[in-house]
């Protein structure tokens, strides 16, 4: 696990989050290590997705939602008014629970983010298309079908494509919200392999309901309960000797 002491890439301080009157996150403090996989676990409705979506400010799109506190990324508080939201979302990308490729061709899906950020050079786009599909191990399968609709792909291929679409814009952090929940065990294992490969170059934060998955792929694990971060630490430590009784109950399956 310890290649070298990893530096913090994201630091969250006293984060509170509200949907209108309802407080979904309560005073979260957390440091995310660069080029490591951080897993977030916890029962349904405890605020994992909400937390993930504050990191790239996707929650801004929800009417009546409000965040307090600080999230430091690259030396800046992302809640400060100077933040370039579009650039933040490019650097902190997101993979969703259900694969959501656009109803466009495979190639157009991958180059979408680049075109959105003002890149139109054909050669550059083709180069990135190749590189991104290679990175998610789709190139050999799909190189002859680049102009087909992405909606014809299998679930696993679609999810890989969504990851490729993200990598194309060269993010630093990849947020994954239950990326395997719509996939079968074989596809899940392969996506997990992909995550281990990506760990070399990207910081990954993954929300999962699958405890084994968290134990298998992650370096650090955080346990959420009712909007609180109950415990955070080394994945080994969390799964072998949790400090908090509630974490232990959840991990050993004694939780409701």
């Amino acid at each position, binding site marked *: 696990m310890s290649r070298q002491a990893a530096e913090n890439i994201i630091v969250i301080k006293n984060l509170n989050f509200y949907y209108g009157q309802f407080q979904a996150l309560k005073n979260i403090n957390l440091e995310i290590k660069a080029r490591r996989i951080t897993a977030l676990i916890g029962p349904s409705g405890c605020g994992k997705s909400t937390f993930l979506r504050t990191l790239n400010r*996707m929650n801004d799109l929800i*009417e009546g939602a409000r965040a307090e506190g600080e999230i430091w990324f690259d030396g800046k508080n992302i809640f400060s008014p100077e933040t370039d939201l579009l650039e933040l*979302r490019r650097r902190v990308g997101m993979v*969703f629970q259900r694969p959501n490729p*656009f109803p*466009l061709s495979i190639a157009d899906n991958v180059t979408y983010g680049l075109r959105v950020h003002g890149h139109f050079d054909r050669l550059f786009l083709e180069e990135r298309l190749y590189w991104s599909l290679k990175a998610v191990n789709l190139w050999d399968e799909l190189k002859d079908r680049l102009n087909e609709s992405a*909606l014809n792909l299998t679930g696993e291929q679609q999810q890989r494509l969504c990851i490729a679409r993200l990598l194309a*814009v060269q993010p630093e952090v990849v947020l994954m919200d239950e990326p395997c929940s719509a996939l079968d065990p074989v596809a899940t294992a392969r996506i997990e392999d992909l995550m281990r490969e990506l760990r070399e170059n990207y910081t990954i934060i993954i929300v999962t309901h699958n405890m084994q998955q968290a134990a298998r792929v992650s370096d650090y694990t955080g346990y959420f309960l009712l909007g609180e971060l109950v415990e955070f630490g080394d994945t080994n430590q969390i799964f072998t000797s949790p400090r908090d009784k509630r974490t232990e109950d959840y991990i050993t399956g004694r939780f409701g």
Partner: protein
Amino acid sequence: MSSNGTNKLEKSDRLIKLSLLMIALSAVSVLAIITIFIFEQGLPIMFRYGLKHFLLGQDWYPSEKSFGLLPMIIGSLMVTFGALIIGVPLGLASAIFLTEFSSRRLAGFLKPVIELLAGIPSVVYGFIGLMFLVPFIRERFGGPGLSVLAASVILGIMILPTVISITIDSIRAVPDSYREGSMALGATKWQTVRMVVLPAARSGIIAGIILGMGRAIGETMAVIMVAGNAADIPGSVLAPVRTLTSNIALEMAYASGEHREALFATGVILFIIIMILNTVANMSSAKQRKKGSGR
């Protein structure tokens, strides 16, 4: 569960199925009868004078046995496309604004209001056009005011409710996951709409435009009131124009003999033009769907 009960159920099901079939058949047969009637009344004269006489003839003098419909065919096409040029951009812009950029409260208030516009009788549109639009065009741009332009503007407004409400429905049917995926890549709202939402909603939007087009080409009353109705090929958008529907409505009351038959022939040609436009538009949207909306 007795087999008796299921039997009874099956019986009533079959009864309902049968009566629905009858109703459907009678609705279809009414349509078929109307179609047959129009063709039966209109086709003989078309064969007698030749298709060319009707389609390419430029002179409509029924009393002198001259039944050239070219001015009316061109007229119908001009005002219909004029209506689309005015109504489609406006309608799309309104629908995009209401679905993607306005608050939900404003959209909830405006959508029913817009749909109410569809219920205003066409004679009212024509009257308003005659009172305000026609004098405005005459004074600002010259010409008689009664013109292709006036008819296009009025029709453009009349097709708005159709275009807007169908476009709104098809934009709303686009899954939010597309929008989220796009925004999460750092796209702006407008980029998301232009590059993902509209392409995804395309076949629905085309259907809305087709319906709008059908409304425009079939509209009669409002057009008669503002178009001037001269049976000549319009030299400009400021010139008066007569459409196929106007031709029928204006002369049916007093027509007899071959004149009356020629009006039915007008109906036949209108019918065929609408069929062609519908088929072309349907084919292009069906092709979209088959490609899985991919480009």
